[in-house]
């Protein structure tokens, strides 16, 4: 087996392990603590990936790859696994937890086939609920804090700060 396919195999198997953990344990996460749970499961899958890829690479014929190269391969496998897991979160977990479109579709689907008027739909899912759910999550994650009835942004550096940094650079140079 070539190193290339070994890296992909290790990442795919670890992603399968991550999915197994996700479907088994994520049901116990409260809506306020989604992000720490997602990170915990992601790290667990990452540890599994590191161990698996290192064991597989150790079984390659000796003398071909040095320890530095093997560590580099493990890092590539980790990167591929991380991308697959983040994509799963963005494509499946994210829409189910936060998407306005999916929630609207769900509300319309609940009264299928007779349908629902737009007015009745807005009674079931309103701007108020959209705001309250997001404020709840932002307060729980510590990105926003409340002081004397005012909501303010707390300067914290996390995973999303990196996204904001890149987005601001893109906006600065290309828009």
């Amino acid at each position: 087996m070539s190193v290339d396919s070994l890296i992909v195999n290790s990442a795919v198997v670890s992603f399968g392990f991550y999915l197994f953990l996700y479907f088994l344990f994520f049901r116990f996460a409260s809506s306020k603590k989604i992000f720490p749970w997602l990170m915990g499961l992601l790290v667990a899958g990452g540890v599994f990936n590191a161990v698996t890829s290192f064991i597989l690479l150790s079984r390659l014929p000796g003398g071909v790859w040095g320890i530095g190269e093997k560590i580099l391969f493990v890092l590539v496998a980790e990167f591929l696994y991380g991308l697959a897991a983040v994509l799963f979160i963005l494509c499946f977990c994210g829409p189910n937890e936060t998407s306005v479109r999916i929630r609207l579709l769900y509300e319309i689907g609940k009264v299928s086939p007779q349908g629902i008027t737009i007015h009745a739909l807005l009674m079931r899912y309103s701007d108020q609920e959209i705001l309250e759910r997001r404020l709840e999550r932002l307060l729980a994650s510590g990105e926003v804090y409340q002081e004397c009835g005012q909501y303010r942004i707390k300067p914290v550096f996390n995973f999303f700060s990196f996204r904001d940094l890149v987005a601001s650079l893109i906006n600065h140079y290309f828009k």
Partner: protein
Amino acid sequence: MFSLLISLGCLFAAIVMHLFLCRFISHSSVRQASFFCFVGIFFFVYMGADSVYFRNMISSSLPSFSLWALRLFSSGAYLYFLCHVLYYLFFVTADVYSPTQRILNFLKEQDGLSYEELLSRTKQANFILPRIEDLQKRSWIFLEKDVCRTTPKGNLILHCLYWYQKLSGRPIGG
């Protein structure tokens, strides 16, 4: 490793090309432009450059179809497409459409907003009605005499959602 390096180079080229195109196209075409840039760069640059590596390494022992399949499923191609979807979801979609990002932007524009002020801005931003229109454009729902109903395509998505919820045990959010 060569294929991974090519894919990272192509990825950079595709992102720069997409961002450059975004200056000249309308807001609604941003998504399609992203798709065309990434697929175009993949077939014309990635496959071309990668063929040098495969021709030298293993091509002599494999029939051409297997070679193409192997190249499509190599770690470089996998990395390229994962990074594209990540770029699309994380920067194109989230930056332009996410309500959470918009609420954070309200707070960035003015430090310290009360709940009522935030609610008023959220209502002005009008998150729901454009999304109902978008659901119609995607043919997930149809509107008949002010009554919304799901289409077969919408029902299929609801079916997938049902199985996801059943497997994960998570209720719908929003």
